[in-house]
């Protein structure tokens, strides 16, 4: 802009003359040796910051972001799956109006667990703390979508004939509950974002699929050829 202005160049070049005192520390003085080494030091500090933040961003940050909670009861899906007649549907069933009941309530459990059937401490805890006083178990739902989402199980399971495993992974054959990781800011389960903090790469076989909107949209686009309307999944 002011490149035609001779005063500007003059003023910078004249600077050492008008202010000769601080020479010794100025990195800009061209030939003073300390400034060269401090150049490397600057670079070093830059790299310390650079590498430090990369490490903390990738390793520390996910640890801090999620709080870890145990399920109230260590539930064994595998054992139950062996005993029921209608697979997942036996406990996670559809109601007559087509809505999905989700987590079973106590009434589904009471038939068998009126009293503890084994000496499994978890079962005894379940009976003592929940069944006998009639308190619903506060299960932590790994797949819980926020309130703004309407998810139709019947559209997917009945309409599109999808299996439970295709989204939820092999939880049905698990013998123990997983640790529930909750995002401290949003309250979402980590499963929604996906276990990989970068969301890069594919989930391993048997792992539940991530369930952010983009994940839904991707599959919808592949399966139906269009991304669908907002109201299809929002309420």
């Amino acid at each position, binding site marked *: 802009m002011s*490149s035609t202005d*001779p005063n500007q*160049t003059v003023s910078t070049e004249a600077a050492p003359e008008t202010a000769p005192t601080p020479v010794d520390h100025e990195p*800009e003085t*061209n*030939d003073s040796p300390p400034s060269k080494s401090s*150049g490397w030091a600057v670079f070093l500090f830059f790299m310390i910051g650079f590498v430090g933040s990369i490490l903390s961003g990738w390793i520390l940050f996910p640890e801090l972001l999620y709080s870890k909670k145990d399920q109230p009861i260590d539930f064994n899906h595998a054992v139950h799956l062996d005993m029921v007649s209608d697979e997942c549907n036996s406990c996670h069933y559809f109601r007559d109006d087509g809505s999905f009941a989700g987590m079973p309530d106590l009434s589904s459990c009471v038939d068998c667990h009126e009293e503890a059937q084994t000496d499994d401490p978890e079962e005894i805890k379940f009976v003592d703390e929940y069944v006998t006083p009639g308190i619903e178990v506060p299960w932590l739902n790994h797949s819980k979508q926020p309130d703004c989402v309407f998810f139709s199980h019947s559209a997917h399971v009945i309409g599109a004939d999808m299996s439970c495993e295709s989204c939820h992974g092999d939880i049905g054959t698990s013998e123990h509950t997983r640790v529930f990781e909750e995002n401290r800011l949003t309250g979402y389960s980590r499963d929604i974002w996906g276990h990989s903090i970068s969301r890069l790469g594919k989930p391993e076989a048997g792992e539940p699929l991530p369930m952010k*909107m*983009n994940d839904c*949209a991707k599959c919808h686009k592949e399966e139906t050829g269009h*991304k669908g309307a907002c109201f299809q999944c929002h309420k």
Partner: protein
Amino acid sequence: MFPFCFEWAWDMSHVVFMGALWYALSIIGAGLTFAIVKSVFDSAGGGHDDQDPGHH
């Protein structure tokens, strides 16, 4: 905004609009990078490369 965003669609309006946007952004980015990199070299080179200031 990016092709991997949910709302992205490859249609004419996206190509025109986003094209213009990315074009502007890349010019700004490239120009800025050029200026910074050149200044790093200029100042590291110290008095050796006087070419540019000399042109004033």
